[in-house]
């Protein structure tokens, strides 16, 4: 009793289960798959700020797991982040950095800066050497102006005037490369973002459903959930079907009384009260 003491964890990675996992896989265990977002996410800088856009389809291999998921994540009131890759990873990493930013705001009494979010994200992703499969488009407006960055799963970042990520990034990038110019107005920026996402939705199988847009300017953020619905779900008429008389041809008629009326052969019929 006296001799056995729990050695406290040294911190860092704990690889205890790796041998056991390898043994299970060798014995035929099929590891569970990841739900990926198979996505088109875009961002661009316009005259007064940034516009972010995303589609809303989450795939699990060939199946659409979620028809209308939210890929534009909240980081700070003035910073939003689109995520592509493994859904759990994008969700967890953006949540984590969002909480860290809030604590930082309480500690400094200042509005969060986009580079802060960027540095927190890239250090976390680099530490996990690409195993956290999150490809992000981070955009926001702070005291130093509008910023747009892309963050890759291994932790590298780019600072760009326009950016696309995800499986539909090529289709969306073709729209941006041919039509982007500096100094776009708000309306032009939203239109270009929506067109780029639509290019991804219609030309990439991993993207689909609706277009979400987020417009961030100095002092104001507008999250336009379902800004466009280019694939509406059509239902049958709400009035139901109408089967007027004469729709169906009557071949023969046989009427049978369900409630049998007894025939009184002797005596009086019962008195009805």
């Amino acid at each position, binding site marked *: 009793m006296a001799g056995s003491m729990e050695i406290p964890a040294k911190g860092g990675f704990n690889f205890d289960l790796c041998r056991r996992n390898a043994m299970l896989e060798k014995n035929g265990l099929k590891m569970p798959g990841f739900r990926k977002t198979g996505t088109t996410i875009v961002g661009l800088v316009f005259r007064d700020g940034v516009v972010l856009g995303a589609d809303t389809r989450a795939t699990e291999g060939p199946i659409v797991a979620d028809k209308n998921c939210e890929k534009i994540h909240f980081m700070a009131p003035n910073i939003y982040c689109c995520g592509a890759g493994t859904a759990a990873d994008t969700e967890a990493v953006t949540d984590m950095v969002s909480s860290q930013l809030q604590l930082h705001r309480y500690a400094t009494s200042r509005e969060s800066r986009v*580079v802060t979010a960027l540095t927190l994200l890239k250090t976390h992703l680099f530490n996990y050497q690409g195993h956290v499969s999150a490809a992000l488009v981070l955009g926001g407006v702070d005291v130093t102006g509008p910023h747009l960055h892309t963050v890759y799963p291994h932790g590298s970042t*780019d*600072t760009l*005037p326009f950016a696309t990520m995800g499986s539909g990034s090529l289709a969306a990038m073709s729209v941006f*490369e041919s039509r982007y110019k*500096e100094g776009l107005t708000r309306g032009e920026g939203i239109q270009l973002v929506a067109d780029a996402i639509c290019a991804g939705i219609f*030309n990439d199988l991993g993207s689909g459903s609706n277009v979400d847009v987020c417009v961030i300017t100095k002092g104001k953020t507008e999250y336009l959930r379902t800004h466009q619905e280019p694939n509406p779900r059509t239902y049958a008429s709400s009035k139901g079907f109408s089967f007027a008389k004469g729709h169906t041809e009557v071949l023969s008629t046989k009427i049978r009384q369900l409630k049998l009326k007894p025939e009184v052969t002797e005596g009086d019929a019962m008195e009805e009260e």
Partner: protein
Amino acid sequence: MDGSHANAAAAAAGGGEGTQRTLNPYVTGNSVIAMKYKDGVIMACDTGASYGSTLRYKSVERIKAVGKHSLIGASGEFSDFQEILRYLDELTLSDHMWDDGNSLGPKEIHAYLTRVMYNRRNKFDPLWNSLVLGGVKKGPKGDEKYLGMVNMIGTHFEENHIATGFGNHMAVPILRGEWREDLTFEEAVKLIEKCLLVLLYRDRSSINKFQIAKITTEGSTIYPPYALKTNWGFAAFENPSQGAVGTW
């Protein structure tokens, strides 16, 4: 016993001693973009051919006229394209020798190429190309424009606009959004230049030297190569790590 079985199997797999199979492409051409427009078909590509990751040849013509009514453009292994041109020469020559007043139209040439590509694929010896075949020929309903493509496994289809290689991912979304039936030649050139510019920016093996070709009832014209103007003057490119240290 086992040794001879293994040898027999290896010989069967390797196809015997003398035969060669195309296992990898070596000198490859880039995307080809083509579309129908008001007067016929327009086709464009760059004039580069890469040897792996080296840009080996910079003045290569990957669009050629076939007969009187068609244009063929190819991406993929360049030597296989040269072989296909020889097959087409034989085809058009024997067609000409019939001297019957009829000449092979684009639809017929496309069908011929489809058979050639598919049969080579079935012998596990493909011609490593994606071919684009376009042309105009007088038919029962007047001048009929035709545009189709065949790839190395024999998949073939006909469309109003075609792009091969990387163009499938980057040019097709633009064409699907902006192509119209009644484009004039100038509008078609502008649209195709839009696609070529996007590919120049985003395809690593693309070069800034393009050739456009068109085919109408008058015949085919392959224009001399020229370069497109690129724009790199974005403010964010000037000093990207100014606001964010450690970023590119």
